[in-house]
């Protein structure tokens, strides 16, 4: 029964554009890659994304964005994750992300940055390779308390 662990991924479509075909194709591909994909639909605010990630206790978040609002949305998502003490979730993005923005996006901690034409298999492999390995062990890593302060120096196993 040790093989019950499944990668859970939140596929979110932040911002105001309603084109979610790409997000749906990726959701389907991740499913075919054996993952459980929570798909939340279009027009997600950073608050909605982070709250869903918390309730669903996902291993990874993949934001699909075409609207150009990534430099406004990604920092907010990362800030909310930090505020809630969520530090073991792989955050990725895909869509239309200009090359000149990628270093800044990566610096925020948003990984992957899959542009148009990225093979679906590459995305699946990326998720599998970069999800926090401790999360994939049978016992999850100890949960840090809400809020950044209480997370300091208290990593005793659950």
């Amino acid at each position: 029964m040790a093989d019950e662990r499944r990668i859970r991924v939140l596929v979110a479509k932040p911002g105001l554009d309603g084109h979610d075909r790409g997000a749906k194709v990726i959701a389907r591909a991740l499913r075919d890659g054996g993952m459980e994909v929570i798909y939340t639909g279009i027009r997600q605010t950073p608050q909605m994304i982070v709250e869903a990630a918390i309730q669903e206790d996902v291993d990874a978040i993949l934001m699909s964005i075409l609207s150009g609002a990534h430099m406004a949305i990604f920092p907010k998502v990362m800030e909310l994750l930090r505020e809630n003490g969520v530090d073991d979730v792989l955050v990725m993005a895909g869509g239309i992300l200009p090359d000149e923005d990628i270093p800044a996006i990566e610096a925020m901690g948003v990984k992957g940055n899959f542009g148009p034409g990225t093979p679906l298999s590459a995305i699946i492999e990326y998720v599998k390779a970069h999800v926090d390995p401790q999360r994939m062990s049978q016992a999850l890593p100890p949960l840090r308390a809400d809020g950044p302060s209480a997370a300091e120096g208290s990593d005793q196993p659950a």
Partner: protein
Amino acid sequence: MTTRPDPAAPATPQSDLVERLLAGDRRALARIVTLIENRAPEARQMLARLHAHGGNAHIVGFTGSPGAGKSTLVTQLARELRRRDQRVGVIAVDPSSPFTGGAILGDRIRMQELAGDPKVFIRSMASRGSVGGLAAATRDATRALDAAGFDTIIIETVGAGQAEVEIVRAAQTVVVVVVPGMGDDIQAIKAGILEIADIFVVNKADRPGADQAAAELRMLLSLDEHRKEHAWKTPIIKTVGMTGEGASELADKLAAHLASLKKTGQLAARDGRQAQSEMVALLHQALIERISATIGTEEWRRLVAQVVERESDPYTTADELARRIGLAPEANHPAR
């Protein structure tokens, strides 16, 4: 990470997820549900502790054909219950692919209106190979939500056909959702999920045929001798999930059903049946685990092959295995 002191942080030990859940920490709740889903060894102990804190929630199951509008209706009901100042938990089950084990869990799409309300907690769950409309972990996840203090816990099953009746073992009130225009389909499903309904909902009632669907259900109910003995008269409610019409009546009927269960002693009887089936399942599992620990995969395969080759039979083999783990059918073995 900053070291800014945070007065909102719970004072309980980091490691104690159960304490944090009881203190209202939704991340601890979410993590415990994950541990339950993964059948992590520590989940069992946690559930044992959580059990003492439960028993206060009204557990409501929603089932019905795929596309009947369950998620939308659940959203409207949750909004109504929030207006009544209840805390609402939702567990939405979707099917896992039998081939890859993956799943797309899309119920949140329709529940967006509930996002941002701290007194609502939604968890999507893949069925992970279970049949019957629920996941193996659904009932235990309900236990976690119950202990966390949710007033109503709504379980939305996998879009169900006829046989997905597991929900009666997990819920106190079962709502069966149908839509107009099913015609003979209602006949077809009457033996399955129609029998388990405590409340019927004809959703999408703004469409033609809603009255007819309600009339057909009324007729089916009148034919059911079994129901005549019950004090509870199964209501048929017409709703429009998109507008919320009927959600208030549904919330009223849910409360009325719970009150009726309590008054007639049926609640205790249901809880008893559920506890019994849980214990049987756990014993079953314990037995299987004991056998797995006693004999290896190799030997198990060999025993199965012997049965297939008719060198042995399933009954003798099972008796023999029971003897080897200390269960003596002849009762003349000293234990262990």
